[in-house]
């Protein structure tokens, strides 16, 4: 009982933190099944958009000794109303039954293969202010017993905590999205400036093409044509960045060779760096191995930081940009992009993550760093910056390595389809 008390205490102190909600919910499920001596515990989350419940984590007993282990990434979905979990969600009441197969309220999918026979079930809906967030279920009381009234109270208490955790998390997510949209609204004037400049250049390109045609001068036509092409590319980049910034996006995690990703990236920027006499070097910890990240997203982040770093080294002799990869500890990966360029003033440092803030004039969209920070925080990572005028700037990305295989909680409220949210 003491461990339950300890857990309740730590749960309460952790309520305010939100990044490790996956772990908290997993712990909570395990504690619930252990406390009421069940064999299995499942926390299903409710997806409002599809009106379905899906497994978030499943906690199973791993032996007689009372040990439990987590199964992750079980994607079984069920409609509201289907089975016991569905029934509990539909009727918004707790269920405590024995031999559920004999109960025709809980019609089960005959094709479903369950290796364990279920003899007793205790299910509690997670409801906060009339809103359904999911269902916490315990299956099979040990020793073939039925779940008691006390078990109902215990799991009810933990379910209440889970509800608070989830609704707190979802409120924070909503607030974050609202803030971002407000930012965007206030920045429409600034974005109009960027768009108008591009439009102006495209008009210019067209005008020059027309001038070339009327003078029958093909060189002039090509000059104009180049301007149109260049600016159509800029427009594409800007619009994609705006979309990327304004929509929440779940990272598409993949095993990634981060060292390879960085050397490919250096290849990509090498021509630009050479033309500005800036050297770009990679220093990678040899035992960094593969990491579980969204390669496109992280590529985008490192590219943004590297381009900024090259720009900061312009007009400097011996300009150097360094990309360093290291294991901070077993849990996290550190990506450091540093330059010995002109540095960022204190005043500007306060604004570098503001949307449409740029000191690069026409060369910046003012979205690179906000987009970078957004992608990093979607990876539950951090982005830090230090800078000194005349000495240079260092950006440090820290990414958790342990996101491996975790079903991201932020997929709950539906995520945009990958196709329409692709990176350029």
């Amino acid at each position, binding site marked *: 009982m003491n461990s339950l008390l300890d857990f309740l205490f730590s749960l309460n102190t952790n309520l305010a933190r939100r990044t490790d909600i996956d772990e908290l919910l997993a712990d909570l499920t395990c504690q619930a099944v252990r406390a009421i001596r069940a064999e299995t515990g499942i926390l299903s989350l409710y997806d409002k958009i599809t009106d379905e419940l899906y497994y978030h984590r499943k906690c199973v007993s791993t032996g007689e000794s009372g040990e439990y282990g987590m199964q992750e990434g079980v994607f079984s979905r069920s409609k509201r109303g289907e089975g016991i979990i569905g029934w509990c969600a539909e009727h918004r009441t707790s269920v405590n039954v024995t031999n559920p197969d004999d109960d025709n309220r809980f019609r089960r999918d005959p094709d479903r293969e369950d290796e364990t026979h279920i003899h007793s079930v205790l299910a509690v809906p997670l409801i906060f202010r009339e809103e359904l967030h999911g269902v916490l279920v315990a299956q099979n009381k040990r020793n073939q017993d039925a779940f008691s009234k006390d078990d109902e109270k215990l799991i009810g208490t933990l379910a209440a905590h889970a509800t608070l955790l989830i609704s707190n998390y979802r409120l924070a997510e909503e607030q974050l999205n609202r803030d971002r949209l407000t930012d965007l609204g206030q920045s429409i004037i600034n974005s109009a*400036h960027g768009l*108008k400049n591009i439009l*102006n*250049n495209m*008009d*210019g390109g067209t005008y020059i093409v027309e001038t070339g045609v009327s003078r029958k001068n093909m060189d*002039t036509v090509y000059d104009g044509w180049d301007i149109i092409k260049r*600016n159509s590319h800029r427009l594409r980049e800007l619009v994609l960045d705006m979309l990327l910034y304004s929509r929440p996006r779940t990272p598409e995690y993949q095993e990634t060779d981060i060292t390879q990703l960085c050397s490919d990236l250096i290849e990509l920027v090498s021509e630009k760096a050479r033309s500005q006499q800036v050297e770009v070097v990679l220093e990678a910890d040899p035992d960094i191995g593969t990491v579980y990240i969204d390669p496109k997203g992280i590529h985008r982040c490192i590219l943004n930081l590297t381009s900024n770093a090259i720009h900061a080294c312009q007009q400097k002799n011996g300009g150097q940009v360094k990309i360093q990869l290291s294991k901070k500890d077993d849990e996290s990966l550190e990506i450091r992009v540093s330059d010995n360029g002109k540095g960022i003033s204190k005043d500007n440092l306060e604004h570098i993550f503001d949307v449409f803030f740029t000191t*690069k004039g*026409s060369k910046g969209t003012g979205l690179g760093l906000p987009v970078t920070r957004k992608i990093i925080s979607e990876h539950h990572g951090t982005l830090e910056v230090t800078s000194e005028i005349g000495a240079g700037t260092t950006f440090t990305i820290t990414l958790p390595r342990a996101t491996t295989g975790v079903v991201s909680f932020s997929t709950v409220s539906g995520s945009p389809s990958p196709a329409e949210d692709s990176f350029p």
Partner: protein
Amino acid sequence: MESKKTILVVDDEPDAIKFVEAVLSNVGDYTVISSSDGPDCLQRVQEETPDLIILDIMMPEMDGFKVFYELRNKASTKDIPIIMLTGVADKVGIRFFKKDMKDYMGSEPAEYIEKPLDPAKLQDAVQWVFETYPV
């Protein structure tokens, strides 16, 4: 014979400078020089004394308003006519036009043209400046 007039185009966008150059090439035979930022513009003005400056407003580090102010407050440059170009006629959150510059800065540019640039407007403005302003 009247000597060729020199026009200085100031914009941080190289493509925008090319646009203005192309328009000017259709107006008359001018010597067109360019500058990509405020400090460089202020220096070029000393060296080349252009007959007209076409000045963009939104530039990094030193914006067009500041450049305008500097030019107007120096005896050697205060009489050079200036045509201002802008993507957003907006300063301190309000729409900002030619007359506002007179009110706030004590002097106004010869013309104030919004981007995207209408080539006809710029042509008219350049012709008007050279007809009106004594050189």
